[in-house]
């Protein structure tokens, strides 16, 4: 019997993985709450501490491949920012960012009765990587003379009184790559603006060290970070569902590894005996 288990068709694993990922989305089943990681809590507290009307820069440095992990984060953060009456400035140094911003913020703003150009704006993408980050330290409106829709930023109510990073309460960089490194080096370090980041699970490990040094005031780690944030603002959504899929998938894989090893040792022992 173990012999069979050891060499069974791998398509069985494929089916199981597919099922455990899809079921939470079909049934709405969710894993129980976990602890809130301090780095998530810190970001939440940071936003809570801002005066209404303070501009918050939400940076969309990801594209379609980062959506499963970063969209839930963006959604939860946008909800928190807008419902606290803070001003939201959507920015991107990754070319696919502005459409991500539009995708998340526009419907949510409508739901919360927030007006584009007054309560939030999608400033769009600027080429050059670190160049626009540095330029915004001098003058944000000059870096972005117009927003994503082509309206001059000078005339937008949401941009009133904003000149450079000194006027920004907090920058949150949502990234699937190494963009947070650039924001740390070219925005936080020279201009001392408060910076937090939300990254995919694989990238998170690279940024823990910046939490220790205080260069980041908060960090959301993959779907887990998104789920924790949803828990904090009391609005469970795709973060929790995704987290549920991931948790069960992890357990299924671990289960298979254990079965595989039991099988391996049982078979080996019985072979040794028969020899």
């Amino acid at each position, binding site marked *: 019997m173990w012999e069979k288990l050891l060499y069974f068709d791998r398509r069985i694993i*494929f089916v199981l993985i597919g099922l455990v990922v899809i079921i939470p*989305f079909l049934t709405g089943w969710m894993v129980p709450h976990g602890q809130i990681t301090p780095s998530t809590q810190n970001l939440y507290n940071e936003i809570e501490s801002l005066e209404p009307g303070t501009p918050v820069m939400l940076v969309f440095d990801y594209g379609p491949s980062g*959506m*499963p992990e970063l969209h839930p984060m963006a959604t939860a953060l946008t*909800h928190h920012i807008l419902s606290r009456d803070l001003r939201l400035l959507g920015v991107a140094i990754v070319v696919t960012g502005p459409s991500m911003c539009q995708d998340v913020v526009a419907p*949510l703003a409508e739901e919360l009765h927030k007006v584009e150009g007054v309560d939030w704006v999608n400033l769009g993408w600027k080429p050059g990587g670190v160049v626009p980050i540095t330029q915004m330290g001098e003058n944000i409106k000059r870096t972005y003379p117009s927003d994503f829709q082509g309206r001059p930023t000078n005339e937008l109510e949401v941009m009133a009184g904003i000149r450079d990073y000194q006027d920004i309460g907090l920058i949150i960089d949502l990234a699937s790559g190494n963009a947070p490194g650039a924001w740390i080096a070219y925005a936080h370090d020279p201009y001392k603006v408060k910076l937090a980041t939300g990254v995919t699970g694989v990238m998170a490990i690279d940024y823990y060290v910046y939490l220790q040094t205080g260069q980041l005031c908060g960090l959301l780690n993959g779907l887990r970070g998104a789920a924790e944030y949803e828990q904090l603002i009391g609005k469970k959504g795709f973060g929790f569902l995704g987290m549920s899929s*991931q948790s069960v998938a992890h357990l299924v*894989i671990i289960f298979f590894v254990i079965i595989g090893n039991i099988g391996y040792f049982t078979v080996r022992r019985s072979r040794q005996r028969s020899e």
Partner: protein
Amino acid sequence: MPGAAGGINAIWGISTEVIGIWLAALLTLAIYSFLYGDNPVYKVAEHVFVGVSAAYGAALTYHLAIIPKLYNPLFRPDLVPDADEPQYILIIPGLLGLLIFSRFIPRYDWLSRWPIAFIMGLYAGLSIPRVIQTNILKQMQATIAPLLPVDAGGEYLLFSGFENLLLVVGVVCTLAYFYFSLPHRGVMGGMSRVGIWFLMIGFGAGFGNTVMARISLLIGRIQFMLYDWLPTIGIHLGSGPGVG
């Protein structure tokens, strides 16, 4: 997904957005069918993928390389900022590029080595300082730390000292594993063994840490099928609970 295709919003009364979603959904299922085994549906998807992506690459090369970097500077300098006359120097890379086609003339096929030699030399020279910067200097700097650090209050930080020690031991033993010109026996053997352990811990952690990211890719596709495609056939799962 953008709805309009070149200004056309609908074909035979079906919106291009819906057609796009169906196209994407069918191709998604076609690729997944490979998990069961090779089959005609996967073959079609694979061949579409190759054709479309090769053409995409070719079109971008045309628009982003050939036109702005070669054709315009040589033949249409008026379209190039800060240039009044043709940049004749570009004839050199143009000729080098043309030499690649000498492969089709057996007598002169050795000429095709010139562009290859140029490119390989170029990148070899470029890589030396870059690799030294990022792989040697940066890594060395990060590893050099006191084995018995003190905090601001003068207290010894034993555990972080242990961590630094472990880092140094790990780096040295991993390098010992890669040592080629000595047999891995005795001290060298012991060190390289420890090096392998470090490598294995690193690989295990790398593997375990990536699982999550790969599962979320699947989540992304499933979300597309459930929340973009299903609604086109009248099945609405809602927009997810709460936010979303």
